[in-house]
């Protein structure tokens, strides 16, 4: 060691000894502290999660003014749950659920407005009635499928109650992700409450003879039009002069495009005849094509399960849709559902067909909730009429409540489902201004309280019921997402100028590839099951089966 090295060594040693004497950090204290820190970090996750759960579970029950129709419906739901009638599904569910007090139910809901119901109303009320807590897991619509499957594969038991699209029922049931409810129904439910479902919706959760959930959201498309324009004597006269016909809500798709063009010609740029949500990825294209295509006599699949899209019905449907687009508000093909609502509510559009919240928004009822204030105030309240969509309207997706097969508390989860979907509780949920849950029970359509929500609510309910009588269901089979995506791509390509026939061929090829991938025989079996449902085809609607509901 030379002189420099010795000096450096000495200096280093001195520094270390001094640090040791001063009690400064050594390796050992560093390791100890590092271990403590790691431990704290590891513990902080669960602690934070517990605090989050606690904070969310403690949300207060939000009740409307007791004198309002909603307040009365909420009070009736509470009364039915606490006092009965003793054979009511709500009462029986609450009585049985008290044995599960303290259990926390994990429930998936579509993120946003849909999740406000269990957070602000049904979750806290259920906790108040039974002592059961709820944890709402908000997911995007595709994730409501994929997460449920992923957690099932992982066997995590992360969810107890699943909100699922009816189209997913066969694959989730066959995959063991959801459990059948038949035994629980036999044990706890009043059978009359099953009969209270509108016939279009009643069979939706049924698959291979078993019940895999409770239908919980009547997403029926309906036509909303400006009565003041349709009843304007000048417009009526001009229409009569031009077409020798009365200006009235359209009964066919050709008539729809003709009326839309007439109004645009007469009133643009102040008001345009129609508007549609046609943006790529917005589900309007798939729903609209499916309803018009089937109303035009189109078949989804042939006997060999080859796509039936390339047909006269397919070409006619796209041509009708192109004509309607041409008669619509500028930017029609760029609109999503919310933009379309904005256009209608601000009075720029005379006709739209969309989901049931359209009617509640047009009457300015929904906008009474701050959660939905991103929708403009309606400038057309009191001027809106309701009609059935020409031909057959689409029941555009909807929701089933399903029981997770991996739930650690299946009975408790089932009891919540039965309670939430029971007639009095589901009515109060559907009446929440911010809720996107739409009426689906016969008792909802007949409800005096719902009918008092806004001046034209009774007509609105009647139209939803009439629409369900002739409504068509989305295909319920595996691969539905793929089939829908192909339709969306096909439509948007056509809106951008692609040839309709060639686009139909491309979509048909994609459908065939999807069918081949999933297995032709297997898909045929699913499709055959689907065709048994009322509303599967235009020849098989509730009305044509003689099961129409008259209010």
């Amino acid at each position, binding site marked *: 060691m030379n002189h420099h090295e010795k000096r450096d060594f000495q200096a280093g040693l001195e520094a270390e000894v001094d640090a040791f004497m001063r009690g400064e950090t050594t390796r050992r204290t560093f390791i100890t502290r590092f271990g403590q820190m790691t431990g704290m970090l590891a513990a902080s996750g669960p602690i934070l999660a517990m605090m989050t759960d606690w904070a969310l579970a403690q949300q207060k029950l939000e009740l409307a003014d007791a004198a309002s129709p909603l307040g009365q419906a909420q009070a009736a739901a509470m009364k039915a749950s606490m006092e009965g009638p003793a054979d009511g599904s709500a009462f029986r569910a609450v009585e049985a659920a008290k044995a599960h007090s303290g259990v926390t139910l994990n429930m998936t809901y579509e993120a946003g407005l849909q999740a406000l119901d269990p957070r602000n109303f049904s979750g806290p009320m259920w906790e108040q009635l039974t002592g059961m807590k709820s944890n709402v897991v908000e997911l995007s619509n595709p994730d409501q*499928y994929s997460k449920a499957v992923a957690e099932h594969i992982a066997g995590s038991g992360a969810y107890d109650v699943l909100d699922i699209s009816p189209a997913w029922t066969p*694959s989730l049931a066959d995959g063991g992700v959801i459990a059948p409810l038949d035994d629980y129904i036999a044990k706890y439910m009043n059978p009359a409450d099953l009969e209270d479902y509108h016939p279009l919706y009643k069979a939706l959760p049924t698959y291979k003879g078993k019940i895999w959930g409770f239908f919980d959201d009547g997403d029926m498309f309906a036509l909303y039009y400006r009565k003041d324009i349709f009843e304007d004597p000048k417009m009526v006269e001009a229409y009569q002069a031009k077409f020798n016909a009365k200006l009235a809500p359209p009964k066919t798709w050709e008539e729809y495009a003709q009326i839309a063009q007439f109004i645009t010609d007469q009133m643009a740029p102040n008001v345009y005849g129609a508007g549609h949500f046609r943006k790529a990825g917005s589900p309007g294209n798939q729903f609209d094509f499916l309803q018009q295509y089937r109303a035009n006599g189109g078949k989804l699949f042939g006997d060999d399960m080859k796509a039936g899209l390339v047909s006269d019905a397919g070409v006619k449907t796209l041509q009708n849709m192109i004509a309607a687009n041409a008669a619509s508000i*500028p930017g029609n*093909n760029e609109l999503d559902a919310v933009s379309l609502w904005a256009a209608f509510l601000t009075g720029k559009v005379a006709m739209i067909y969309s989901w049931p919240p359209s009617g509640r928004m047009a009457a300015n009822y929904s906008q009474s909730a701050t959660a939905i204030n991103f929708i403009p105030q309606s400038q057309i309240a009191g001027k809106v009429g309701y009609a059935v969509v020409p031909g057959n309207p689409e029941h555009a997706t909807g929701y089933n409540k399903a029981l997770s097969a991996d739930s650690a508390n299946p009975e408790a989860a089932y009891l919540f489902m039965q309670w939430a979907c029971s007639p009095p509780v589901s009515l109060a949920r559907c009446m929440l201004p911010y809720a996107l849950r739409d009426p689906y029970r016969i008792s909802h359509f007949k409800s005096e309280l719902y009918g008092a929500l806004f001046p034209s609510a009774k007509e609105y309910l009647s139209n939803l019921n009439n629409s369900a009588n002739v409504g068509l269901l989305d295909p319920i089979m595996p691969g539905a997402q793929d089939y829908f995506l192909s339709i*969306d791509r096909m439509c948007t*390509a056509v809106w951008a100028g692609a040839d309709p026939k060639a686009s139909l061929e491309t979509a048909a090829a994609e459908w065939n590839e999807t069918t081949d991938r*999933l297995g032709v025989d297997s898909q045929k079996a699913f499709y055959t099951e689907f065709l048994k449902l009322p509303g599967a085809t235009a020849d098989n609607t509730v009305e044509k089966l003689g099961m129409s509901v008259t209010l």
Partner: protein
Amino acid sequence: MQHTATISRLKAAGAPPRLSGFAQWADRHFKWLLVAPAVLLILALSVYPLLFSLVVSFINYDFQVPGHAFVGLKNFERVVFDPVARWSLLLTAWLSGISVAIEFVLGLLVALTMVRSFPGRGVIMSILIVPLFISPVIVGQAWTLLLQRPFGPTNYILTQLLGQEVTIGWMTESPWLYVSLIIADVWQWTPFMFVILLAGLTAIPPNLYEAAELDGVNAWQAFWAITLPHLAPMMLLALTFRLLDAIRMFDTIFIMTGGGPGTRTYTASYYLYTVGFTQFHLSQATAGSWLFLIFTALVVMLLVRRLLKTEPV
């Protein structure tokens, strides 16, 4: 003398505590213990998912088809023979190339303007780099609000400026939908180019310009002879980073066009997202990701090689 003093001080402090067997082991392997958490974290969060994704790309992992059977190269084959996949790769190269080229030119121009000091320079620079801090989703939404008919003001403003009615479908009509996507990307990422190039410009010794001025060199000659050679490594760095980011373009497309009309605005990332999370064909999406990774790696290799060559020895 000093050694004796140190030893006596250590003696006065008392004998060090006796170490347990574990403590001795920990003492011996201290360096490994220090890196172990990081290594474990990398293994758990990076290596394991990577290997798992490789496995997934050779099996059936589809939320609609039960079971995980080995399918060989089927997933890769589906991607390679999918015309939408091929188109999305082409569009990715095209869109990212054009966007980055425009961002580079604009970024360089702004950097050259801002390199000299002038009143208000600090405020202008702060405003210029604001888009960098905005989420691409918000950028997409903001441009949608500006461009979407019938509510966006763009066509109205153009109509007023041009004196004739403008009815462009900015997000549904070719070629305007590509123009819209490029505008949104350029608006957000030009500041990135500007910041890096400005740093490069300020690092060029000013005496070079002073000497050039004494030699009678004009501004254009100074740019070619001094600025460009000195800035070249920074330019390549900026282009490399930006290009690597641009080929992952997804958010603005998701918000502005939803991939449409048809599949016209499907980039590679959007294609993989659709296959994986709209159609739930996870194994096909994973196989596609591997193919995309290979293409990206090739681009990275080329650019990094070029970058290393420009480094001074």
